[in-house]
């Protein structure tokens, strides 16, 4: 990771200045948000579904080490191999070594935020293994040399004209028709699926009792990735586990509706271990990599622990006014939006701005939308507290000090009222200072004669109103 930390303020201002990307983003986010809302509204039992899913996610946290041991035993019994990884570098080294030892040259990959978290593509490239992203959006992003901007729709910010130009450059074949562009990508990726030596997938839900890795998608690229190559590596973070298939069903009741507004996506694949005796296809080797990267420490944290209930549906991103405005890249971290502002603050070697928890209006839309019952504002507030403990915020300190003394507080307001009631002078002195920037889009109404000095003069009017309107 870079020694120079990301600055959300600068990155978000730059994102806002890019009118073209913003227009695409605006449209796409409103659409994904509307899809989710429509599907949730159409489910009369959504509240019950949510309650069951919240209970299942809580039950995972209550018995996490037991579940992981059960999972390990089940996967092993089904012919799979389980690996634990402490952090990003250990996980990517583990996978790279494993594939190198087996002579893998080409690996197909399905979209996995965890693989982004551990920087897997970079590690594979360094080891001379070609890793091809197979989700259409992710493939576009990879060809462009960018990073995803949304955890579900990574190329949300790219226009069809940009894709068209990209395909012309990379494949010598293009179109401006979106279905035709999709066919071009299909042809190019199909060759990769059929030739790949290994397939790497993430995991949406993992079932301890059966050792089953569940993945959800619409395109079919994950199904191909887990079915065709002779080696399958599935990458999960340790909190993705649930106890039973029935518990998984409860999570599935809310995950697709909250993510894409679907009852079920086109493909739900359940991979359990490696191919069995007598089977002619499916991977001969199946590896399940379980990543910690700071999560086990999070379990011990009574206030922040609930973020481990997150099922990565993206609902909190789509409703967040900040995310809606600036998009995913401004966060400079794998996980953007409300859940990302929390996760990036607590995961090991997470990139992003350390002050990210402050970039929130506390509107609470995230908590309202979250199907896993996470109260993001409470967690963000706690992260602010931990940050502030170390900082020296003189403005807040002085304001709080003034507020302890009503006479001083009143005098300060009176002084400001006389000297600079509309804050024009402050803004003129430092146009790029906080007040100057605040006033770029606003005209401050000005400090007035305080209410407390007007109240006494109201006495007669108030008693008249009381006599007239007072109820018997």
């Amino acid at each position, binding site marked *: 990771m870079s020694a120079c930390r990301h600055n959300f303020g600068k990155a978000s201002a730059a994102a806002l200045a890019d009118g073209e990307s913003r227009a695409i983003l605006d449209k796409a986010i409103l659409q994904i948000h509307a899809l989710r809302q429509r599907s949730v509204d159409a489910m009369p039992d959504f509240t019950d579904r949510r309650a069951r899913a919240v209970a299942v996610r809580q*039950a995972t946290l209550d018995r996490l080490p037991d579940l992981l041991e059960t999972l390990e035993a089940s996967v092993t019994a089904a012919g799979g191999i389980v690996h634990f990884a402490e952090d990003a570098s250990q996980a990517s080294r583990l996978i790279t070594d494993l594939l190198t030892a087996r002579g893998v040259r080409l690996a197909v990959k399905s979209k996995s935020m965890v693989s982004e978290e551990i920087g897997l593509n970079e590690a594979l490239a360094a080891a001379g293994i070609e890793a091809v992203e197979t989700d259409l959006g992710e493939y576009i992003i990879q060809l462009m040399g960018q990073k995803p901007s949304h955890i579900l729709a990574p190329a949300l910010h790219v226009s069809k004209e940009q894709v068209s130009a990209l395909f012309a450059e990379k494949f010598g074949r293009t179109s401006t028709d979106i279905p035709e562009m999709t066919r071009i990508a299909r042809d190019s990726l199909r060759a990769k699926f059929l030739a790949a030596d290994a397939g790497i997938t993430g995991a949406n839900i993992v079932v301890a009792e059966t050792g089953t890795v569940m993945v959800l998608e619409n395109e079919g690229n994950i199904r191909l990735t887990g079915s065709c190559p002779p080696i399958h590596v599935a990458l999960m973070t340790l909190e993705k586990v649930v106890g039973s298939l*029935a518990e998984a069903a409860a999570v599935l009741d809310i995950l697709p509706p909250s993510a894409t507004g679907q009852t079920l996506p086109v493909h739900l694949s359940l991979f359990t271990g490696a191919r069995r*005796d007598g089977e002619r296809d499916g991977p001969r080797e199946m590896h399940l990599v379980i990543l910690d990267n700071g999560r086990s420490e999070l*379990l011990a944290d009574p206030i922040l622990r609930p973020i481990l209930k997150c099922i990565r549906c993206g609902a909190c991103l789509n409703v967040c006014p900040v995310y809606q405005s600036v998009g995913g890249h401004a966060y400079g971290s794998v996980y953007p939006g409300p859940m990302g502002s929390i996760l990036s603050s607590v995961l090991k070697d997470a990139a992003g701005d350390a002050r990210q928890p402050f970039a929130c209006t506390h509107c609470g839309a995230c908590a309202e939308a979250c199907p896993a019952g996470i109260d993001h504002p409470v967690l963000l507030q706690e992260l602010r507290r931990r940050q502030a403990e170390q900082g020296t915020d003189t403005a807040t300190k002085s304001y709080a000090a003034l507020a302890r003394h009503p006479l001083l507080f009143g005098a300060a307001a009176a002084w400001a009222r006389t000297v600079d009631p509309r804050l024009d002078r402050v803004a003129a002195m430092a146009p790029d200072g906080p007040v100057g920037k605040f006033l770029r889009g606003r005209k401050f109404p000005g400090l007035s004669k305080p209410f407390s000095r007007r109240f006494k003069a109201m006495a007669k009017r108030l008693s008249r109103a009381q006599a007239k309107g007072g109820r018997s």
Partner: protein
Amino acid sequence: MNETQTRTAILSRLRAGQPKGLPRARRPLSLRRQCLDAVDFETFAAALTALGPTFELARTPDAAKAALAAVVAKNGVKTAVRWDHPDLDAVDAAATLAGAGVAVLAPEDLPERVCPSLAAVDMGITSVAYAVCATGSLILAAGKGRERATPLVPRLHVALLPASKLVPDLPAVFEGLAKGPMPSAVNCVSGVSSTGDIEFVYVRGVHGPLAVHVIGLEWL
């Protein structure tokens, strides 16, 4: 640290960090949602066809054979790959296809790398483990003679669906799966693959089969 040490370190941190307090009630959580959907071909077909695939109900084995021959003719199928499955035998699938001039690959004909070998094959024909009425989903379970690639790589997937395989919803599928050992792969397929990754424009037919046809077997 080696892998064993890592495993031990992670698990012991998790044990130390588990939420404290009284042990929670062991009473199993009631997870089953109420199921309101009818279990019949009509409900299934309505959900299925809304997602893109086509459906035909056959009331007799002869009707099923005719339906299969018609699909082959309509789609210009020259080559096919099939599963070994009693439901296919019930409609003489291999013979029916051969009779229609289709070269049929049986599981035992398949080479070491199955997927590439099916790249140019027109059709894959399978049965299903279950079919979900609420969502029009086909549940395909891998096994000996039931290759994952058969319903996945060819451009057309034809699934035979006996009436006895219809279930109301996905939890019912999971209840069924929980009774036996889990197959190495179970695929729940609802419609034809799709994407919205370019400017959120919905496109059908990304990977896998571009068309899916289901023949309902009413007598089975």
